[in-house]
């Protein structure tokens, strides 16, 4: 009871600091808006009008159907039609085409026999993002066409084509929708780790931590009181980002909002612990902010699957991404928002977040205790 009262005194003080320091609030509430607008409008990850070379060596109705499926949307524009496979490389080099669909001889016959037929997709790897997005999209398309053809031939029920595409990618690959979960991670990481690491490091740096330790306020009260306000601020940001995402970009909320906030809460706790650990180790604001930046923003940007697909990374980076919270949070968010998944699907990610929290809690409180003598 006493501990709670002291934690409350700490929390009130922290709120005072936050209210006094306009920068924190502007930063905390302005950043989600700014980042959303920046990423949502200015930086488009959508790929449209990709110049496509079609190398049809089959010349069957089936091969023409596949070609038609590729060029029916806005994604690919056929710029070259040929049957010469050797022509591809010069086309890429001269920037005439970015992606090439090679339908080999025998494609139609294989489909006719009820076998899975193979087509080749070649992409110009110099533009990585476009290439991977285009390839993924083309892949899904080819797969669905194949399966539809197979299904028609075998007389089984047509597989739900649209669902299949959607589970692989969000429909139409609208990047804003895809990016909102990633942005949420970035924003929360910055607030939770950066601000808490700074506020605790500041207490060490200015000597007020020593004054605090000279009072009967316990370690737990300090942690709870210090982190509580940022926890609330983090949840406000989740709400803000989500609302903006829905209002501006039509992000679908297919799953439970409650579950989303619950997962966000676990993620926030993990991040707050990381901030605490950093500040206890660094004990000055300069080092703390550098450590926070390195250990949070980088993984959130690079290892979350937010921009770069994890699957294409070397095993070591994949391993790191799997240990750190950002990837799990992005995955869980996307599952809840875009696919409407429940806890039955996302529990492994939630478990990974919780495990990270527990490990960091142990490390941080152990380090924090030492300073108390």
């Amino acid at each position: 009871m006493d501990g709670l009262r002291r934690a409350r005194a700490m929390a009130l003080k922290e709120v005072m600091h936050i209210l006094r320091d306009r920068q924190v609030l502007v930063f905390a509430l302005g950043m989600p808006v700014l980042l959303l607008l920046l990423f949502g409008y200015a930086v488009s990850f959508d790929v449209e009008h990709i110049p496509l070379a079609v190398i049809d060596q089959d010349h069957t109705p089936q091969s023409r159907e596949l070609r038609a499926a590729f060029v029916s949307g806005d994604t690919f524009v056929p710029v070259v039609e040929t049957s010469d496979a050797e022509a591809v490389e010069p086309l890429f080099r001269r920037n005439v085409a970015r992606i090439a669909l090679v339908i080999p001889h025998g494609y139609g016959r294989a489909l006719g026999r009820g076998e899975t037929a193979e087509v080749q997709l070649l992409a110009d790897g110099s533009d990585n993002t476009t290439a991977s997005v285009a390839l993924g999209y083309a892949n899904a398309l080819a797969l669905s066409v194949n399966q539809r053809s197979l299904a028609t031939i075998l007389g089984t029920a047509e597989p739900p084509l649209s669902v299949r595409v959607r589970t692989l990618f969000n429909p139409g690959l609208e990047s804003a929708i895809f990016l909102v979960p990633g942005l949420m991670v970035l924003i929360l990481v910055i607030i939770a780790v950066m601000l808490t690491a700074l506020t605790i490091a500041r207490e060490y740096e200015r000597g007020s931590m020593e004054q605090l330790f000279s009072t009967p306020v316990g370690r737990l009260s300090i942690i709870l009181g210090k982190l509580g306000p940022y926890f609330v601020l983090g949840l406000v940001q989740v709400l803000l980002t989500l609302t903006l995402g829905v209002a501006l970009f039509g992000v679908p909320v297919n799953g439970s909002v409650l579950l989303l906030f619950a997962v966000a809460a676990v993620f926030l706790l993990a991040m707050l612990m990381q901030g605490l650990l950093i500040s206890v180790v660094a004990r000055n604001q300069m080092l703390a902010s550098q450590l926070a930046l390195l250990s949070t923003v980088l993984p959130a940007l690079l290892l979350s699957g937010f921009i770069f697909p994890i699957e294409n990374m070397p095993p070591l980076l994949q391993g790191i991404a799997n240990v750190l919270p950002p990837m799990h949070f992005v995955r869980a968010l996307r599952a809840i928002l875009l696919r409407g998944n429940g806890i039955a699907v996302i529990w492994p990610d939630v478990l990974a977040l919780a495990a990270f929290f527990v490990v960091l809690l142990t490390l941080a409180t152990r380090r924090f205790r030492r300073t108390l003598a």
Partner: protein
Amino acid sequence: MAEPAAAPIIEVQDLTRRFGDFVAVDAVSFRVERGEIFGYLGANGAGKSTTIRMLCGLLAPTSGSARVAGFELPDQAVRVKSSIGYMSQRFSLYTDLEVAENLSFFAGAYGLRGARRRQRIDYALEVAGLTDRRRALTRDLPGGIRQRLALASALLHEPTLIFLDEPTAGVDPASRRSFWRLIRQLVREGTTVFVTTHHLDEAEYCGRVGLMVDGHLTALDTPAALKRTHVPGTMLAIGGDLSVPALRSALAGQDGVLDIQPFGRALHVRVRGPLSDPDAMARALERAGITGADITPTEPTLEDVFLTLAAGSTRQNEL
């Protein structure tokens, strides 16, 4: 569980603190009685703050024992913290908060509630002289007032013992005097004060003074006794623009010259025997060609004690 009022409020036995190989505080032993002003004196790095940190439960001793306000350290650190106040060497209130917000926070940290909380905050405002400026930002306060506010906030929970680590460092003389009036007032009300200082004149206000040199407690007594024991002989102040070497050569070969130290504009010469008489001294100087020197008997100061005792220090030697 508090002990009878007669027991010393601080009892320290062989208290030692190492940082790696470096011994910051070396087997220090002393007692502080209830209601005392106990002064702790020493050069930079002598180990004053380290001693205080251990006694406040902020730093674990490497060895030795300490009993503070009836509780054993470091095991009962939390209970010690509830009964003591601590004003650290650095100003450590929150400068971005208002006066009242600082006090209100520390009142909460000490677990004060309801009427008592309001009453203690009012008292603290009064002590700091800030009753009319409770909404002022702490960073806007002048140094002297800040120190009073820091003291006031360390008094919120009515501690029986208060540790002040160089409370008047960097404060103007007038504020220093009023700060010391406040300390004496607290002691009259029954508080025990443990204070470190660089100002030797302030040490004269202390009931007893401990002198730290290189982590050792080299002397501990009342100011008067310290002077008697460590600065024997008679102290003569010699005015006129004399240098130490000049006076030393003038008095070369004279019996009973114990020490010569510059002191303000004058020189302090400590002598024994016939030269203790100012007239005898004047004659001796005239024989060496120094005439018209202004010679007056004077009391040794704690600075003289300090200079004598710190003569062998390997750490810094300036107070």
